[in-house]
């Protein structure tokens, strides 16, 4: 199953993203961003399992602001 970690600077956008991803059938895990880089302090991360391309498109279309994303190795 493909997996992408999206990062958010606000809990509001993280939850909106979580709900959107789950509506598309993906599983998710939301955490305080465990490894914040510069500019990401106090942010949240959302790991999306499955349908990641579709989910990313939905985030972009829904103007769900993420600060970045990582594809774990």
């Amino acid at each position, binding site marked *: 199953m493909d997996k992408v970690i999206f990062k958010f*600077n*606000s*809990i*509001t*956008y993280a*939850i*909106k993203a979580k*709900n959107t991803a789950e509506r598309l059938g993906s599983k998710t895990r*939301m*955490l*305080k961003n465990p490894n914040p880089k*510069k*500019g990401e*302090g*106090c*942010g*949240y991360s959302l790991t999306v399992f499955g349908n990641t391309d579709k989910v990313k498109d939905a985030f972009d279309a829904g*103007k769900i*602001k993420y600060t970045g994303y990582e594809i774990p190795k």
Partner: protein
Amino acid sequence: MIYFDNGATSFPKPFSVVNAVNLSFCEFCANPGRGGYKSAMKSAEMIYNARESAARLFNADAENVIFTPGCTFSLNTAIKGLCRPGSHFVISDLEHNSVIRPLEKLKKMGLCEYSVAEITPDDSTTVNNFASAFRKNTVAVVCTLSSNVFGIMPPVEKIAREAHKNGIIFILDAAQGAGYLPVNMKKDNTDIICCAGHKGLFGPMGTGLLIISNNVALGTLTEGGTGSNSESLSQPDFPPDRFESGTPNVHGIAGLSAGIKFVLNVKRENILSHENKIINYIYDELSSLGNVILYTDFYDGIPKSPVLSFNIRSKPSEETAALLAEKGICVRGGLHCAPLAHKKFGTIKSGTVRITPSWFTSEDETEFLVNCIKKIAN
């Protein structure tokens, strides 16, 4: 107690609201948007759900729903957040002091000016009154959804359209009407909605909403910790964080969320229809009494919300309200913080007695109220 002061705050609250507030002290005990542990996340999810419910009711985006301590705070944020030195505002002649006083303060500080446009029975005259008050430096129009004293409903959608034609932001004061009158942010060209949480939305006192559209750049009234962008010394530039500094009123928001869900379930059209039925009955009964002065005609075809002001000839409004209070009836006398509306109707000295029912007002209570007014009037 027989309660007809829902225009001040609604009572009773739905049982689901009372329950939600009670349970929130156990279920949502952690600070949302700060910690990453389960109970903090649970609080944050509840708050996001509340935003989504409000967004659904007003056709807005959830992240643009901002929780405030009340409509006054929302209006202060909207007005002061848009004010720049040399700005000009246009307001209606039915506005509440929560609109007039911030503008008066800014005016006295030399920061802005404002004009008052007259609401008339004819929509196009009303819209023209606003249009002719616009100046090059007009930044916003502030208009009430419904007069909190006389129930008159200005043609807000048409006024908003005229404002937009001139590049002016439209702020809707929906304190009186949100929850039972139609408010559709995207359809009605509204840029900013300000409303109370504790009136037609059945939330606890100390709750309110500020809802902004995507194209509004609004300054802040307060700054502080938001749980986001914490390394930055500047306030975040994105809603809702930009406008929600400090720990939110989690328990109030839990109640407000339940109140909004109650409105969505019962349907605002049904609430309006019930309240109109009550007000029309009272209007019909009082209009046959020679000693009672009514200020609005419920059959003249001009849209009105279920708010009725009256006086008993030769009695100050406060005295009538006090006599009704002796019978256990709660109504409000006086000026209702809306001096412009009273000047318009010639009631600035006497004030008026205001009757505002709710979804929970029964026919028996209404009949009792009418009988008590009849006795006082005779």
